[in-house]
């Protein structure tokens, strides 16, 4: 009942671990697998070893999370042990990558494709560093160029991950599809935002600003997935604030084929994957759906 497909990749259920949440080592990814995820996304991998920002990097406020981890990474060349360990994972593994230039995206994609992940996600949407990230996802022509150049070196399906922070979301999505993207992931974090501690009169995050995630951004995620669905024909991995089965169904109705689970692990623990699946299944039965495909895009009819 919960089976779905994303760019030809079969998922036993639509819950996909979002990049950057619990995705730092093979050991914790396996634990997420044991907790019922349909697929896993690795923490975004970058060109060189990078420490990321000082703490505080991740905090929670009344209605969501704010993070500026700053793309910490051991660097794609220093992960041989993890790649080896990842081979034991039975469910699809999506490798997320980022670069500071189109050349770097290509260089990493070429290397990572050899490790045979089920898909490569292009993080062209991180708001938390000065040089890498969302700049590539702001302009349709730049996003399209990243996708087409990466496509040229990778046999593995390519899924750009889009930022909700561009006014040209639809155009960016279209450019990615035209450049050969196999699927689209949306959304990365919103903002950036800032929280100031009034006792010390200082922004709390060390980077001062950070991307919003969790329940606060769900309506934005739903709107973005809805807009992307109207614009392209490739499958969509919808994410942003999905915390329970009802949220998952909402994003599927907006047009997603699978749903990302990220900040929900803060609210519900690592059990979030099996909980969301169970709740979705119950809702589907109540509403008379027999498979995920039937739900995808129903809000457009």
């Amino acid at each position, binding site marked *: 009942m919960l089976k779905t497909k994303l760019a030809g990749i079969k998922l036993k259920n639509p819950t996909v671990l979002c990049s950057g949440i619990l995705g730092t080592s093979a050991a914790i990814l396996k634990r997420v697998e044991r907790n019922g995820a349909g697929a896993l996304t690795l923490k975004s991998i970058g060109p060189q070893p990078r420490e990321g920002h000082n703490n505080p990097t991740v905090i929670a406020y009344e209605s969501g999370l704010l993070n500026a981890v700053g793309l910490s990474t051991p660097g794609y060349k220093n992960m041989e042990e993890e790649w080896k360990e990842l081979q034991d994972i039975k469910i699809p593994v999506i490798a997320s990558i980022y670069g500071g230039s189109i050349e770097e995206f290509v260089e990493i994609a070429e290397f990572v494709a050899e490790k045979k992940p089920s898909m490569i996600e292009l993080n062209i949407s991180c708001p938390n560093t000065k040089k890498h990230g969302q700049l590539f996802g702001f302009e349709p022509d730049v996003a399209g160029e990243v996708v087409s150049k990466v496509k040229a070196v990778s046999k593995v399906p390519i899924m750009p991950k889009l930022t909700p922070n561009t006014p040209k979301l639809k155009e960016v999505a279209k450019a990615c599809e035209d450049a050969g993207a196999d699927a689209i992931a949306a959304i990365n974090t919103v903002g950036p935002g800032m929280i100031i*501690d009034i*006792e010390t009169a200082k922004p*709390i995050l060390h980077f001062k600003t950070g991307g919003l995630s969790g329940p606060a951004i769900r309506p934005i995620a739903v709107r973005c997935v809805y807009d992307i669905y109207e614009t392209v024909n490739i499958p969509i991995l919808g994410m942003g604030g999905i915390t329970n089965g009802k949220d998952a169904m909402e994003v599927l109705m907006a047009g997603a084929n699978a749903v990302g689970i990220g900040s929900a692990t803060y609210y519900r623990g690592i059990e979030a994957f099996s909980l969301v699946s169970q709740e979705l299944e119950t809702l589907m039965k109540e509403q008379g759906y027999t498979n995920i495909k039937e739900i995808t895009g129903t809000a457009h009819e």
Partner: protein
Amino acid sequence: MNEQDYPQGTKIIEIKQETPTVKTVVFQREFNFKPGQFVMVWVPGLDEVPMSLSSKNSITIKDVGETTHALHAMKPSDKIGLRGPYGNGFSLKEKNILAVGGGFGTAPLKPLFKNTNIKWIIGARNKEELLFTEEIDTLICTDDGSKGEKAFVTVLADRELATGKYDLVISCGPEIMLKNLFKVCEQHNINAEFSLERYMKCGFGICGHCAMDPTGWMVCKDGPVANSKILRELKEFGEYTRDKKGEVTSL
């Protein structure tokens, strides 16, 4: 999840020099906590680091690097940010407990000083670095023999456990010490609860940075206190850790 998972500024009310390298910082905010739980301590503009609570309103800090140095340089009425408490704390289900503190590792054990079921062993490099030994009746050892017995805590623990009086060993200290102490516990077939450290970011179990191999046991949320069953599973315990980048480095 706590009611509020972002740091909130609080005023420092007192700073005590405990040893040449360790200070206790007492602050205004009070935490309802279980011994062994920790808080994330924010030095505005610099960094945020995990510190065990040494009482409901204090942390006891060893000066080892930039952030701990900045904390040592603070004065009463300066402000730091705190969030927590995080982690599991010691379960203390057993009755007859041996507590072993190595170096500043005695800090998270201090809230248990009132517990009368506990026998204490406190060790340090030398007499100056012995932490809290004035405040409690304890066996003492130093690496250089400048006070107490000239031995490692593991030697004293081995001798105590041989009496058969104990059913739990709790400890915190350098991981190599914990690794050796765990061997002693296993030889005597006595359950252990040790407080571990790994590089942390969120502190509440979502970034995955402090997850240990091969089970993905997260020090911040599942720990920091690991029992014998968990310690046996953790192949990286006493062997390696991951740095801020996520790269594996030996201990």
